[in-house]
């Protein structure tokens, strides 16, 4: 778990470095969200359960099985980018092989999809659980309500995870909703809503594990609200100085989920400082190697522009 959090953080740092070098025109950062993503992703079973993420979910797709190499193929918009072959902006995940559902840029449109997948999974007699992630901004959309409402009516095997970082780009939570906790909205759909410290990876894990077991048992959905913070602007094209003070951002970093988990691991005697340093160094070397491989991969052929509008036959 810790290594996945570190990998996500290092992918972020490398992506911004590549952005400043002019090699990556667009970056969607994850930093600050690693705890709630790793915690809520970990209880699902890669290869069996289904993943319906949104664009900030670097750690979620890592858990689902996407490699840093594949993530950087997307960042560089390469032909072999598994999500879209360079068609979509980076961080618009998708892989049928890994059960990561392709998503778009409009917000919350994936939420009804998660409900539909859960319906199909139950209908087919599978024990699949669907994980569906979004920010708190998504909860203002009609599609979000429609998805949760349908899932609640039919007690579908899906867990909704809100990564609440308090801002929908620049709009602060008090201008998004009149309530303190997104989780309160679950009452309107007839299933539990749980607030959890999104910077405490183990608390997120515990909440998700309970929710997944509940879903798998046929008891229906859960809405988990993980309260967290993003350390970078919304994207590489955003300037968050216009809506957040530097003091607020620095204060939030005192709650860094990676630092907190490292402290816990040290307290428990699982890792020591030396082992942690080695893990960071190894992971960074590994990520950097995969960046180089991705950078050297082929660009999409211009002639491929008109492909895949419609079905082209099996194996196309």
């Amino acid at each position, binding site marked *: 778990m810790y290594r996945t959090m570190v990998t996500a953080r290092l992918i972020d740092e490398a992506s911004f470095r590549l952005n400043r070098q002019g090699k990556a025109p667009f970056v969607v950062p994850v930093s600050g969200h690693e705890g709630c993503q790793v915690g809520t992703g970990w209880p699902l079973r890669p290869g069996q359960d289904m993943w319906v993420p949104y664009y900030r979910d670097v750690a979620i797709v890592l858990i689902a099985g996407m490699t840093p190499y594949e993530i950087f193929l997307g960042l560089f918009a390469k032909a072999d*980018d598994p999500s879209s072959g360079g068609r979509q902006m980076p961080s618009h995940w998708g892989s049928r092989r890994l059960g990561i559902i392709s998503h778009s840029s409009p917000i919350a*449109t994936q939420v*009804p*999809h*998660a409900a539909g*997948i859960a319906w199909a999974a139950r209908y087919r007699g599978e024990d699949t659980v669907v994980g569906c992630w979004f920010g708190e901004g998504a909860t203002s959309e009609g599609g979000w309500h*429609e*998805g949760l409402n349908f899932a609640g009516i039919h007690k579908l095997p899906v867990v909704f995870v809100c990564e609440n970082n308090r801002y929908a780009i620049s709009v602060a939570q008090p201008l998004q909703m009149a309530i303190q906790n997104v989780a309160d909205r679950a009452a309107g759909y007839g299933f539990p809503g749980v607030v959890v410290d999104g910077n405490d990876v183990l608390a997120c894990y515990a909440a998700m594990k309970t929710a997944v077991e509940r879903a798998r048992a046929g008891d229906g959905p859960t809405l988990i609200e993980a309260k967290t913070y993003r350390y970078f602007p919304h994207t590489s094209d955003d300037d968050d100085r216009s809506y957040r003070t530097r003091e607020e951002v620095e204060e939030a970093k005192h709650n860094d989920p990676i630092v907190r988990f490292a402290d816990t691991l040290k307290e428990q005697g699982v890792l020591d400082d030396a082992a942690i340093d080695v893990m960071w160094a190894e992971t960074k070397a590994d990520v950097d190697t995969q960046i180089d491989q991705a950078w050297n991969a082929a660009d999409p052929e211009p002639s491929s522009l008109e*492909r895949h509008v*419609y079905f082209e036959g099996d194996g196309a």
Partner: protein
Amino acid sequence: MTEKNVVTAIHDTLHDEMAADDRVVVLGEDIATRGGVFRVTQGFLDEFGDQRVIDTPLAEGGIIGFAVGMALHGLLPVAEIEFADFIHPAYDQMVSEVSRMRYRSNGDFGLPMVVRAPWGGGVHGALYHSQSIEATYGHIPGIKVVVPGTPYDASGMLRAAIKDPDPVLFLEHKRTYRLIKGDVPDEPFEVPIGKADVKREGDDLTAIAYGLALHLCLEAASRLQEEQGVSVEVVDVRTISPLDRETILASVVKTGKALVVYEDNRTYGAGAEIAATIAEEALFDLDAPVARMGGPDVPAMGFASSLEHAFMPNADTVAERMLELARF
């Protein structure tokens, strides 16, 4: 062969496909207990159960979004939008999700799903139960848009739509539901999507239409033959997207004259694309300018009979325009 009206043909075909393949599920408003406001899914709930015949909350974006999820996970959903006029809340799902899933995933994901929607006027539907939406979605690559006008075509094209690996918007002209009757084979058959059909052969001019307007053209053509000796060929477009340019152009080249009739607002309607195609590809075979009849450019038709009639084409106005073109 059994003679059926359009709504019975659709009901029977959907029923048979559900009986033949348990991946086919239907979802929408009022479709289960009520059997659909037009009775298309009458009796389905009892026969197939509530896991395959799903009454949804009143949420069109959700209906399409749930269908997307089902199609992504092994099912073949047939979603019903109660009236085409109510599909607008689902526009984001249709355009951002349904049409682009295959393209944006570089062919990794596909959406084998059908969205059925009754469209068109002539039933006192007023502004919000009469609209034409085919041009809106015909403009969106990635979604196929079909507009069958006869029981035979409705049956064969619905079966083709359910078996199609790509999303199909299946538009049923509600005035034709019980008005138009015809023979339908008792054995399963398909009518290919993307193929227009010459519904009546003729020499003097070509009328190109779909939906209810097809039948107005057929009636007008028959009347002109009897009364004036004018021979009109009638092409049923059947599929708005992808458009069968070859069949349309072949007919126009043969007759040398083209009249495009559609019920939607004239400006930017599907008929405009057809007229432009003819102008681009067959100009030197034309003996007269391409003619178009479309609805007036007002937001929608009124409830009062006088207002509805003033909006809709009818066999008289179509025959008049045909005669004018024949004499050009």
